[in-house]
């Protein structure tokens, strides 16, 4: 077709008063697609209803609930101590934080405090957990945006941390290590040295991730100015954690309302002004370094031995654990004591196992700073030996609400970057 002919056609209707509509006006149709719940980039079973105009996201509606397991309801039918094993499974990438929030809430209701060494151990494991969680975020985000090697490195280092967790708690995830009144047991022999070795290697590894990504042109194009969320919008949506700090708001529960002695540790609350996916990446990288610093301070405080569980025998449980040939269990000396020596000890043991502790009536809300933001535990007691209500304010649940604001108007490929930049864990979202 000759150019003249095209011009003729384009102007043909004008004399007749016919205005050819522009392309944008003609294409009224949009397409709705389901991203998830089975999609490798949705970090579990998140479903996004995306309305697309070509490659552009017109609207986005997150659909959740595919991993609802009734954790809150289940805790109401168990003893207070058993509650730890339920809440730890909510946000499965940060189990220590769930345990800590729950135990701090119950201890607040009881009006007791864990011994100093137990508090240091809690901080130590939480900060190691923060690094492990940020490593999973780094690994999966890298993979989703095409940086496959970062995935391998992230999981390699996380494995080192999980090995330490396994040596100390017996499990790689869902540890139920932090208990009401303290922690289950002290570090194993050589534990401090093992953590020290990790501290020696990890800073170099973080530098390595930065060398791979921070100035990588593809990484920059996929992240800079993508998924912006202003400080005002973030606060309106209740967003906390790295996503909020990336918008320049220095909100961190560890600093604002210190618990477990955080006020005595030196660390920085990292903020950035970019408010985009890249700023969230920078924050998590720097937070890993800050966590390493806190772990180092913990090690210094753990040189002197001390009790790791509250002295009160009516609260301290489990009483005495030891590692035997088939794993962690009641120590042989303790079993001999209750089975052969003391009827009272046996009765006490029986009461603690079947009934557990009674907690005075009341309600508390205890926030802790999880890797994803403010993890709040609203715990109600009615004076019985079971929780009356445990409500987990999971940061992923709240942060996900801001996703439509971040992705609408952007490209569908950016949705992947945005989702990974807020690091949702569906176990915590759906509970």
């Amino acid at each position, binding site marked *: 077709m000759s150019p003249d002919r095209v011009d003729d056609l384009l102007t043909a209707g004008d004399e007749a008063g016919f205005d050819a509509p522009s392309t944008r006006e003609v294409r009224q149709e949009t397409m709705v697609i389901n991203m998830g719940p089975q999609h490798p980039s949705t970090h579990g079973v998140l479903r996004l209803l995306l309305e697309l105009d070509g490659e552009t996201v017109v609207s986005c509606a997150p659909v*959740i*609930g595919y991993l*609802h397991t*009734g954790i*809150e*309801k*289940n805790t109401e*039918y*168990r003893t207070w101590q058993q509650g730890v094993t339920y809440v730890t499974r909510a946000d499965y990438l940060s189990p220590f934080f769930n345990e800590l929030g729950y135990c701090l809430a119950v201890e*607040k*209701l009881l*009006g007791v405090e864990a011994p100093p060494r137990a508090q240091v151990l809690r901080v130590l494991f939480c900060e190691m957990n923060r690094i492990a969680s940020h490593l999973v975020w780094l690994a999966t985000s890298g993979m989703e945006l095409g940086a496959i090697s970062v995935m391998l490195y992230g999981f390699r280092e996380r494995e080192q941390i999980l090995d330490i967790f396994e040596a100390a708690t017996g499990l790689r995830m869902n540890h139920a290590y932090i208990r009401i009144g303290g922690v289950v047991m002290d570090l194993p022999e050589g534990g401090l040295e093992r953590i020290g070795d990790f501290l020696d290697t990890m800073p170099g590894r973080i530098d390595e991730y930065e060398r791979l990504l921070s100035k990588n042109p593809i990484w920059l194009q996929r992240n800079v100015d993508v998924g912006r969320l202003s400080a005002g919008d973030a*606060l*309106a*949506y*209740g967003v906390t954690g790295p996503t909020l700090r990336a918008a320049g*708001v220095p*909100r961190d529960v560890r600093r*604002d*309302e210190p618990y477990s002695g955080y006020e005595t540790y030196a660390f920085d609350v990292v903020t950035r002004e970019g408010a985009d996916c890249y700023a969230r990446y920078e924050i998590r990288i720097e937070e890993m370094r800050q966590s390493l610093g806190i772990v180092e301070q913990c090690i210094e405080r753990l040189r002197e031995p001390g009790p790791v569980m509250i002295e009160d025998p009516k609260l301290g449980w489990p009483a005495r654990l030891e590692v035997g040939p088939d794993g962690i269990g009641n120590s042989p000396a303790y079993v001999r004591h209750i089975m052969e020596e003391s009827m009272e000890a046996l009765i006490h043991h029986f009461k603690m196992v*079947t*009934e557990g502790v009674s907690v005075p009536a*009341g*309600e*508390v*809300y205890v*926030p802790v700073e999880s890797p994803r933001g*403010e993890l*709040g535990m*609203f715990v*109600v007691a009615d004076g019985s030996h079971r929780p*009356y*209500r445990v*409500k987990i*304010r999971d940061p992923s*649940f*709240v942060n*996900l*609400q801001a996703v439509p604001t971040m992705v609408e108007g952007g490209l569908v490929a950016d949705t992947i970057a945005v989702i990974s930049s807020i690091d949702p864990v569906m176990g915590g979202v*759906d*509970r």
Partner: protein
Amino acid sequence: MIAAELAERVRAVAPDVVVARGEVTLTVARDDVTATLDRLRAEPDLSFDFLASIAATDWPGRDPRFWVVYELASVEHLHRLRVKVGLPEADPTIPSVVDRFPTANWHEREAYDLFGITFEGHPDLRRILLPDGWEGWPLRKTEELGGVNTRYHGAFIPPVDRRTS
């Protein structure tokens, strides 16, 4: 600000303030909830501009049976406040606060989904964690745990509260 001092300032907004375990709790009637939240946010000394969470609790046999619990915080002053609203069994409805706090959207849907509390004026009050066709309000105390049907000799494992003491 220490809890007693904060309680004193909150008392200027609404009278029913209790301090327990270092936490300040304000109880208001359901018709006053939106106006109270507005004033708590507007007062410069208080500036409760961050809604952390909305939880519900169920107390069958008592009046009010349901409680809706707002956990507020101030970004500027770093203090916290709990606002509680009691709802009668016959009419568990309460005004929505989504227009004031966008974050309330999912929290209110969750309380609706699990407790059957209706938030009037909510833009999209649907179930959020459970399937749309689900019947009942599972976190009410009157709802039972289901138990497990197994395929082994047709055995049924009763729910945990009927297994133990």
